[in-house]
């Protein structure tokens, strides 16, 4: 689960880059960059959740 989260994060980065390339207008560009950051935040949340589960299983 941690690895899944970490794999999602680059998708958010590429979304942000695509926004810069594809949208010359400031408003949609900013909105899509924000969407990229939101995807990264979701990936990070999944990775943190995966870390917590892994830790719970390993606890003595």
């Amino acid at each position, binding site marked *: 689960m941690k690895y899944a989260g970490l794999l999602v994060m680059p998708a958010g*980065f590429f979304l942000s880059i695509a926004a*810069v390339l594809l949208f010359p207008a400031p408003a949609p560009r*900013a909105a899509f*960059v924000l969407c990229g*950051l939101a995807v990264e935040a979701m990936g990070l949340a999944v990775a*943190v959740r995966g870390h917590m589960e892994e830790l719970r299983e390993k*606890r003595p």
Partner: protein
Amino acid sequence: MTTFQPLSEAALALTLALFMLAPLAIAGVALINTGLGRSRSAAQSLLGSLAILAVSAIAFALVGATFIGAAGHTVQIAGKPWNWLGTSPWLLGGLGSAPAQTQLALLFEFLAAALAAILPWGSGADRCRLTAGCATAAILSALVFPLTAHWIWGGGWLAQLGVNFQLGAGFLDGGGAATVNVLGGLSALALVWIAGPRRGKFPKEGLSTALPGHNAVYVLFGCLLALVGWLAWNVAGAVVFLHAPLAALPVTAVNTLLSAASAVGATFAVTQIRFGKPDASLCANGWMAGLVASSACAGLVTPLAAILIGLVAGIFTPLLVELFELALSIDDPSGAITVHGAGGLWGLVAAGIFAGQPGQLVAQMVGVATLLGLILPLVYLLFWLLNRVLPFRVDPDGERIGMDLQELGGGAYPEFVIHRDESYR
């Protein structure tokens, strides 16, 4: 090597003098890391900082400096040039005959690589081997830092966002909030995830065990040392990377101080309200978070904005430290993930909000997206591979007797009797 706009002789002399003070930031962070760790690991912690500084300097000189130059590998995407990797002569060739400002920038990058490499060491305190700390420092200084620094400081694609896509002045980071602090903070997160928490930190039942730092005096004195280093760092960065005129430098220094001052005030108030008394180590974290946030924006904002930026950093720092430990099971003894990672990210966003140029906030957000979405997974992957070859953690018995005895054969405080740790499970 990076090529920069020519500086006046006065600016060159001032910048060189400031670089003599900048290592105090590293000294401060090393002292804070040692104070926040346990007494049985103090000598290993401080020796580790010294070793990491040495390894980082050599790795950067041998490999990293080659990939940081302004001229570099460029790809064309959608008709725009994307400069993604710098090129310079191998092994610092031609450094002696390079312009003075190029040499100064390289000196800055040496120090920046070392500081970024020391930050994860504090988070892995009391459980990570010296060799692992040195190996992570080599990876950061030889590969990841040069890549990030080239993109931001060396005229790479993040710096060119303004020219190529009309996003303000491109991604701005005069004092190393991104290249040093966020990189170090995210590396600390990767290291903590891989190494795991200190033994006994998160028991099966109940709340996490408090493992307080062993010397609050080291921690608070480290904060004072860090102030001197950060003032030098931010002012020198403003000259070298933001091309600030000499007349603008006192404001940069004032903003640095104001950000740290308002941050520690806010943390003092938050801990007073939450615990009934101010907490020394959290106040130190707040102070450092204010300094880190100022790294991104001290040369760009007004003093009032610097106070606001520090205030926000000082409020979220103690709350985030608590969240990471109690809710997210992240054992970060030095608080580097919050202080340097989150503090740096906030500073970068604040620079976009308060700098007042159209498109600047979007440029800063693209930079933040790059750090979180590309650099964090990359560092995690590199550290994960390294951990397979060279395990980060000592064995449980070594952790019980402490890193000083395990790795150095003697403690930092030899006159103290070492007791069996009854809380150890």
